[in-house]
């Protein structure tokens, strides 16, 4: 296994590290991905996000509904591709299109009070990205400053204030769905990034959930705020987390903490569930049979072979 320590940390990598150090080791440092990796949740989520991005970008500039939704459907089709999920899966191509349609019905483009904010050059801030240096933390191999990077679906304006907006697909929305985001690190990071790199006074995040069900789609929206003290706490722990990653890299020890956190069964099943259940003596054989090296690039947000 050839290991690489990432130069850029994202919310996803950090969450992966905290959910299970061994998963971080296999997925990020070794760059392993299952050969049969296509995942219905990621496929449907990416296709839905692509549809909304294309629609919003065009509509924000031209206010042309027909072209905006046509571009949205086209983007969804191209992103979902010809993938056919396993029998019984809810997030099929047709249901993902239904989710896009539901979004257009529930949040009409013309009257949605939450709109993309417009940047100084007149471009709507859809797919908003940021990168900043993590203070005092350096790459264990190159010595370069470590970076934190992120991308949210939109930097939105609502009631005269700026919010990051994130659309999430899910298989169900329960009564505590909106509570999931009150403290979620991902959104603290987005707000911190927008403030840090762009000096924008972003006050919080709006999360729009879309439950893709067999017969219908359900929506829910949560609005959360991020005061300065919460952002400072997030930054302090980011430094601590990345320092722990570096310490483990130097020690060469990434324990199987998913055995306590429950990460082994999150999102269906961890892609390394079987590997971790294999006698270490056969680890290399199992890896060469079932995995390929396909590293995640947190800036491009895609895996690189």
């Amino acid at each position: 296994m050839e290991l690489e320590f990432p130069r850029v940390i994202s919310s996803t990598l950090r969450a992966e590290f905290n959910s299970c150090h061994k998963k971080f080791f296999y997925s990020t440092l070794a760059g392993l991905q299952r050969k049969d990796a296509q995942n219905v949740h990621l496929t449907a989520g990416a296709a839905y996000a692509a549809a909304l991005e294309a629609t919003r970008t065009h509509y924000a500039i031209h206010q042309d509904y027909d072209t905006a939704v046509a571009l949205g459907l086209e983007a969804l089709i191209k992103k979902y591709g010809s993938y056919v999920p396993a029998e019984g899966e809810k997030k099929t191509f047709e249901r993902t299109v239904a989710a896009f349609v539901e979004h257009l019905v529930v949040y009409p483009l013309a009257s949605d009070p939450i709109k993309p904010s417009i940047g100084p050059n007149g471009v709507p801030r859809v797919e908003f990205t940021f990168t900043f240096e993590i203070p005092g933390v350096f790459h264990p191999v190159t010595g370069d400053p470590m970076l934190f990077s992120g991308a949210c679906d939109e930097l939105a304006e609502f009631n005269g204030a700026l919010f990051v907006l994130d659309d999430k697909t899910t298989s169900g929305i329960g009564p505590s769905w909106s509570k999931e985001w009150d403290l979620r690190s991902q959104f603290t990071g987005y707000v911190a990034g927008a403030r840090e790199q762009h000096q924008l006074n972003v006050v919080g995040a709006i999360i729009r959930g879309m439950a893709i069900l067999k017969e219908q789609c359900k929506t829910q929206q949560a609005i959360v705020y991020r005061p300065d003290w919460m952002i400072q706490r997030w930054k302090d722990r980011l430094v601590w987390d990345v320092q722990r990653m570096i310490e483990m890299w130097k020690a060469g020890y990434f324990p199987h903490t998913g055995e306590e956190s429950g990460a082994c069964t999150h999102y269906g099943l961890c892609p390394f569930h079987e590997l971790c259940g294999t006698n270490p003596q056969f680890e290399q054989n199992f890896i060469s049979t079932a995995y390929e090296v396909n590293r995640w690039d947190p800036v491009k947000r895609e895996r690189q072979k």
Partner: protein
Amino acid sequence: MSFSHEQLNDLRKRVLDGQPYTREELAEAVRQLVGDRLSQAPKAAEPKGKSKPSPVNLDDLL
């Protein structure tokens, strides 16, 4: 008229295979799908029976 899964998958196939399609077709598909969704919108809940609030006897509450 509703937009069927067959029509949607035909459009999908043409987009993915690089066969001819137009943005008007895509927009029309979305328009029809939105129309279908709106026509399926759950009706407002019917009032249950004709019950009226009963007068409360204050003595019963004491």
